[in-house]
């Protein structure tokens, strides 16, 4: 009841303010009249009675105010009054207001954007039930302990022997061609073991999940569709049980996944089918290569360490039932990571470093705004003093200042949301292809809450210092000091803040500088081929006809012929895998018949290339020894191979590898005779040194030939401009074959360094923002200091100081602050650059050139910022300054 009254009466006071005020006035009026009437009744003259009442009652206005101020609504009224006043203050000083709001917006917007992008990747659990129980398992047998996909044999052995998993599944990429309803088109898909969806914990929303009975070599072909693909196929509710034609074979749709299913292991995949591997095949057959990703769902209560121990034990103790080929002997054990760590491992260091950087930017923004507000506080000191002298309570003053700060922060926050929205779009546009869960990135509610929190906290933090200063100042002295004759202690605070800013800016600049130098180093690396004027694309085959090996081979030969006739093309070739394309590497165990250093059971893997003759010429890969692959190396000719220099050196140190015999992959593969050695090529990325490779002709290739090879074309001029002509040339042979992933080699090269580039762009943006803010900060402090010391400067020049003396005086003051900030920043940088150590390439994180360059840049900008106030100080005319007091 009473709460209800509080609310309604208060709201009435707010909404019908004049009526409520009138009532109070009426009541006071009535009171006065009654009092007067009473006195008149006692015999006083009306005049005397009025005076007596006036005396007793005091000022009627004050009484009215007292009554009005007693309800809660008066707090609201005061707040709005404060807000209006704050708004007026800002309008009076639009330059100041705009600067502060812009700085806050940058700080808040940048941090919100980065948080939006990073949160779903690093912090939010993956969208699966009990996502923390999902792990990835890899073979540790790669070069220098790097991870390898597992073999089917390892999977079968773990399914049988491990006790740690509820479900264990393997998968591999699959690009089936769907014919019938739509244009022939290749879809991204996955071949999976029947347990795949159960391991992730997401089941089809329509139809049923894969069952073990579906995953046998003699099972009927079945498929599960993504919801999007189902919709594109017409969204038929009766689709379960219908047949679709995949790679020319009829396949029964048994289920449709829910639309919310986010497949982090293959975000593009739209269609799934069981592996249907033949478990009775000999252990060395081609289905036993390292080509499967393994995912498992741990039993409840089983930890990562526990499962690691179990898998180590299994790896160390082979059992006869599970024969292990030499290339999958599990000598180096198995690797287990949580799925989250696994999908984010590549980008984690960069993202964490970005969070650190953006926090620094936010801090520097707040420091700068504080500085601006402090400077303004100085100018408004006499205003505050006057208000205190006129009876304003100090709490009232504090509240007023905080209202102003919060208004600034709120405006900054609103603009910051705009910056954040744009920032997220920019981040997505810039993001490297490896960035997982990109679809989940958006400015969301949590992020908005984060932005609001940041706004409020920064607003309060920024507002506090000037408010406290006004609180502590003695109105008496403050009024006396209205003439800006002396510099107060607040200068100390502001100088300290500037030193702090310089230090933070240096840390960011050093980080950006190190990344820039890393990228320079990276692009200075020779990929092993000439990337200029090189166009690449993937030519896929589709349709029943192409299932015939002869037809397919003929199509590729004729296409190549047609492409070579396109004007502007100087050379063209096909290859089964393309360096720096970002596609998964096609690695095989390479076994030399008589290598002095090669043990049959411990041979390293190498990239296997099936190429058309002319590949080396097209790519400009130099021949070091022997001969290249040639047209006459056909299926009926003796099998020959070309190996990379690094492979030749490691297998035949000091000896000629020409004429040696090599086997690629399982033991039932044929021997190839080495006929040539070519230069090393960076396959996976410029940063990785691994370059062991074996090349054979497509015609002689049995296992790693592909039905979707890459076409590389060297152009005389602009490579990208040839794209339509080349596509038409291929389609003139067969117009139904899809051509995808068209890119120039230079683009691929840039993309291969995309993660570092991404980090560099953001760090550079942050560092430059920090630098600009710091320059504003230095300028602000010096300008304030010069303005306050006008009289002192006047006296100095009156006493004989020259202009250059004065100039030096001010410059010295500014540069001393900068130098102190640089020293602190250097110490901080030594520690902070640890965070980006993994992103660096070819330089130490204590790279002297970077540090010197950054210091020079910072000092240059700082001295420019100092110059303007210094110059203004030097122009001071003592006669004017001294007289003006």
């Amino acid at each position, binding site marked *: *009841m*009473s709460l209800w*009254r509080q609310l309604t009466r208060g709201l009435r006071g707010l909404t019908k303010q004049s009526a409520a005020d009138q*009532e109070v006035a*009426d009541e006071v009026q*009535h*009171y006065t009249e009654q009092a007067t009437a009473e006195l008149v009744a006692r015999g006083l003259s009306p005049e005397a009675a009025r005076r007596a009442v006036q005396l007793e009652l*005091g000022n009627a206005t*004050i009484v009215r105010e007292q009554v009005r101020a*007693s309800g809660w609504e008066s707090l609201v009224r005061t707040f709005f009054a404060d807000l209006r006043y704050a708004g007026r203050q800002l309008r009076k000083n639009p330059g100041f207001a705009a600067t502060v709001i812009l700085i806050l917006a940058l700080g808040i917007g940048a941090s919100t954007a980065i948080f939006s992008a990073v949160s779903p990747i690093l912090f939010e659990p993956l969208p699966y039930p009990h996502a923390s129980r999902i792990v990835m398992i890899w073979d540790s047998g790669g070069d220098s302990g790097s991870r390898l996909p597992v073999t089917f044999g390892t999977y079968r052995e773990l399914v049988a022997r491990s006790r740690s998993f509820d479900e264990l599944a393997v998968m591999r990429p699959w690009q089936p061609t769907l014919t019938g309803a739509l244009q022939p088109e290749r879809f991204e898909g996955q071949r999976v073991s029947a347990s795949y969806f159960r391991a992730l914990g997401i089941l089809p929303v329509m139809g049923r999940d894969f069952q073990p009975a579906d995953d046998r070599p003699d099972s009927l072909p079945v498929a599960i569709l993504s919801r999007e693909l189902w919709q594109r196929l017409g969204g038929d509710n009766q689709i379960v049980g219908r047949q679709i034609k995949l790679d020319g074979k009829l396949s029964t749709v048994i289920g449709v996944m829910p639309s919310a299913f986010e497949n982090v292991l293959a975000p593009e995949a739209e269609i799934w089918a069981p592996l249907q591997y033949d478990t009775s095949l000999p252990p060395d057959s081609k289905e036993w290569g390292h080509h499967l990703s393994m995912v498992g769902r741990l039993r409840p209560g089983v930890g990562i360490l526990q499962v690691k121990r179990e898998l180590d034990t299994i790896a160390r103790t082979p059992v006869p039932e599970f024969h292990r080929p030499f290339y999958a002997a599990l000598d180096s054990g198995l690797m287990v990571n949580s799925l989250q760590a696994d999908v984010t491992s590549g980008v984690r260091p960069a993202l964490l470093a970005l969070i650190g950087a953006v926090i620094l930017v936010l801090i520097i923004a707040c420091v700068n705004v504080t500085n601006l507000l402090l400077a303004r506080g100085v100018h408004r000191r006499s205003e505050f003093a006057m208000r205190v002298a006129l009876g304003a309570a100090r709490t009232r003053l504090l509240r007023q200042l905080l209202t102003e700060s919060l208004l600034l922060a709120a405006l900054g926050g609103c603009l910051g949301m705009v910056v954040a929205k744009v920032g997220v779009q920019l981040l997505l546009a810039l993001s490297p292809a490896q960035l997982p869960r990109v679809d989940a990135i958006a400015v969301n509610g949590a992020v908005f809450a984060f932005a609001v929190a940041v706004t409020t906290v920064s607003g309060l933090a920024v507002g506090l210092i000037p408010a406290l200063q006004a609180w502590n100042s003695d109105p008496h002295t403050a009024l006396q000091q209205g003439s800006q004759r002396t510099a107060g202690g607040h200068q100390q605070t502001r100088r300290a803040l500037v030193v702090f800013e310089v230090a933070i800016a240096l840390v960011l600049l050093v980080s950006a500088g190190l990344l820039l130098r890393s990228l320079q180093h990276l692009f200075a690396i020779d990929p092993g081929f000439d990337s200029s004027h090189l166009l690449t694309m993937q030519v896929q085959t589709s349709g029943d006809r192409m299932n015939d090996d002869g037809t397919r081979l003929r199509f590729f030969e004729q296409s190549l012929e047609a492409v070579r006739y396109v004007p502007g093309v100087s050379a063209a070739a096909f290859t089964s895998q393309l360096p720096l394309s970002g596609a998964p590497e096609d690695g095989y165990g390479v076994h030399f018949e008589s290598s002095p250093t090669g043990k049959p059971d411990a041979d390293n893997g190498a990239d296997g290339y099936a190429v058309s003759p002319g590949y080396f010429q097209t790519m400009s890969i130099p021949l070091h020894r022997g001969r290249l692959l040639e047209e006459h190396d056909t299926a009926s000719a003796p099998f020959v191979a070309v190996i990379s220099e690094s492979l030749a050196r490691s297998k035949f140190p000091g000896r000629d590898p020409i004429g040696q015999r090599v086997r690629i992959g399982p033991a039932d593969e044929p021997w190839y005779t080495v006929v040539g050695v070519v230069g090393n090529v960076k396959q996976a990325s410029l940063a990785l040194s691994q370059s062991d490779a074996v090349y054979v002709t497509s015609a002689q290739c049995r296992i790693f030939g592909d039905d979707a090879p890459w076409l590389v074309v060297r152009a005389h001029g602009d490579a990208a401009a040839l794209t339509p002509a080349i596509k038409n040339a291929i389609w003139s042979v067969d117009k139904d074959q899809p051509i995808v992933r068209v890119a120039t080699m230079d683009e691929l090269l840039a993309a291969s360094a995309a993660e570092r580039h991404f980090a560099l762009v953001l760090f550079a943006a942050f560092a430059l923002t920090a630098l600009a803010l710091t320059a504003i900060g230095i300028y602000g402090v010096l300008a304030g200091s010069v303005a306050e010391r006008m009289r002192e400067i006047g006296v100095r020049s009156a006493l004989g100081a020259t202009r250059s003396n004065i100039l030096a005086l001010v410059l010295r003051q500014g540069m001393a602050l900068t130098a102190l900030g640089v020293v602190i920043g250097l110490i901080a940088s030594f520690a902070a650059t640890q965070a980006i150590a993994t992103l660096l390439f070819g330089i130490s994180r204590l790279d002297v050139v970077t540090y010197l360059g950054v210091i020079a840049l910072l000092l240059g900008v700082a001295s420019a910022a100092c110059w303007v106030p210094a110059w203004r100080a030097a122009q001071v005319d003592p006669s004017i300054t001294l007289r003006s007091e």
Partner: protein
Amino acid sequence: MTFLGPSPDEASTDVIQGTLDMLILKTLSLEPMHGFGIARRVEQISRGVFKVNPGSLLTALQRLERAGWLDAEWQQTENSRRAKYYRLTRAGKKQLEIESADWKRRASAIARLLNAEG
């Protein structure tokens, strides 16, 4: 609470801090009346010992009305002026009982202390 300062008339003092609410409730328990009536009644009954500050009184009336202890109503007075009349509610009556019991308890405790000899 005072804004007029000490009155030149030393005989009357401001209402003891914290008792104004109780005095208002007590006065209104006799009959509904308007603000000035309450002030005069308090002065009369206390035989001029307590003087009610109009600002404090009107503020207190607003507070008590919002607390639900009083009902307020604009009425025509005898001389056809509008005046705000206050009436004690049931909750107000209960509150008066609580406050007066509390006051009596404290007043007798103070009296005992002052009368103590030793």
